[in-house]
């Protein structure tokens, strides 16, 4: 696989070949050098898809909701790309990606392309590969791209940064847990979904969210709370209507341009950071410099901050 093969694959993707799309996602995930080339070829064709992020605790019904939301989008004539992200085991590097089980009926729909990805644990790795996969689905011509992540930590918050509309899914049985997670992922919600709304305590959950929203300041968009029973498709239409309202809201003024500016900046800096770190670490390891400095710290001849400064001074000299 070289740069010429990549150009051929990109041309196939732009012609609508899903096998080329699948192969290119694999390449951006695994081959940093080819990735840069792929992304520069693809970039002019991106910017048409509307990206929706869905996050929530394990078992809250995200995958089922994505499945039903996709069904609703399809009845409205839209094509959909789905990126379902599951955690990588930090011990073995392996992963079981099971989100597709809830989306089987969409597997053979030509208007839908589903890709499972694992977090792969590396710094920034999750967000970058997923960003790149979004761009590929966008260039492929999907009207909507839905990114599904388990909402438990910082990395997932990053990925929702790629979305224009972020949805946080909670369930009635969470009770006081809502209080516990509010400091984390709740702030990112543009829309709340209370799924499994046929269980008891729905109204208490809705009220807890309302009270939280009363206390928070989200500008002039107050996140709506939509009750759904994803397994039965209840509330899914209302959810998509809410997404369309939020889309109209951010497109109304120059909000979306500001969003693009801010995100492009964050993205560029993130890429610079990771490339710089990769390069620096490689050089330090190859020269044995890192080993020498680490030993100095272990032997208490130097403190970690001075050690870091010494490394940074080498950067200045270049």
């Amino acid at each position, binding site marked *: 696989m070289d740069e010429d093969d990549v150009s051929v694959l990109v041309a196939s993707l732009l012609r609508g070949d*899903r*096998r080329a799309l*699948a*192969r290119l*996602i*694999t390449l951006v995930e*695994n*081959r*940093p*050098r080819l990735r840069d080339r792929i992304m520069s070829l693809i970039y002019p064709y991106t910017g048409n898809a509307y990206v929706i992020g869905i996050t929530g605790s394990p078992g809250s019904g995200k995958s089922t909701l994505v499945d039903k939301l996709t069904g609703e989008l399809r009845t409205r004539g839209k094509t959909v790309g789905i990126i379902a992200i599951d955690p*990588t*085991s930090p011990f*073995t*590097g*392996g*992963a*079981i*990606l*099971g989100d*597709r*089980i809830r989306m*089987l009926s969409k*597997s*053979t729909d030509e208007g839908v*392309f*589903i*890709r*499972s990805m*694992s977090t*792969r644990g590396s710094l920034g790795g999750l967000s970058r590969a997923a960003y790149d996969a979004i761009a590929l689905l966008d260039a492929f011509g999907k009207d909507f791209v839905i990114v599904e992540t388990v909402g438990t930590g910082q990395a997932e918050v990053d990925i929702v940064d790629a979305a224009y509309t972020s949805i946080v899914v909670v369930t009635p049985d969470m009770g006081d847990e809502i209080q516990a997670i509010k400091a984390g992922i709740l702030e990112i919600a543009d829309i709340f979904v209370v799924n499994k709304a046929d269980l008891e305590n729905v109204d208490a959950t809705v009220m807890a969210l309302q009270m939280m929203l009363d206390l928070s300041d989200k500008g002039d968009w107050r996140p709506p709370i939509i009750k759904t029973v994803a397994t039965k498709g209840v509330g899914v239409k209302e959810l998509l209507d809410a997404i369309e309202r939020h889309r109209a809201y951010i497109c109304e003024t120059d909000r979306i341009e500001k969003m693009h500016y801010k995100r492009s900046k964050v993205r560029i800096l993130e890429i610079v950071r990771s490339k710089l770190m*990769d390069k620096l670490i*490689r050089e330090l390891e190859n020269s044995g410099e890192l080993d020498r400095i680490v030993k100095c710290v272990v032997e208490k001849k130097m403190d970690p901050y001075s050690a870091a400064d010494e490394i940074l001074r080498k950067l200045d000299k270049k």
Partner: protein
Amino acid sequence: MEEEKKIRVIIAKPGLDGHDRGAKIVARALRDAGMEVIYMGLRNTPEQIVETAIQEDVDVIGLSILSGAHMALVPRVLELLKENGVEDKIVLVGGIIPKVDEEKLKEMGVAEIFGPGTPTDKIVEFIRQRVGEIRKR
């Protein structure tokens, strides 16, 4: 950064039997061996399996069948792969497959068949070796 590609595998259960213990054990073993396993659950159609294999760009398609319908389901999967121009995937079958059928399935293009009691290490080893050979090409 080293350029290393993770092995990706689909574990699917075509047909109607509900015995997924074996499929789950294999899925876990492969995960623990550092692979990314797309687990498809029960009652998959050959069409769903092949389309998933394409979209997920997997190296290996693992089919678990205990219903006895393997001589209908497996050839259909192989046929669909061919129809879609997909020829670089390793197809493995697990479950209760009589010896006489084993040979026929292998002739059709199944890479290997793992019956009950196969140590999971053996499956891991087989996949690593085959994927390595294909990638070298």
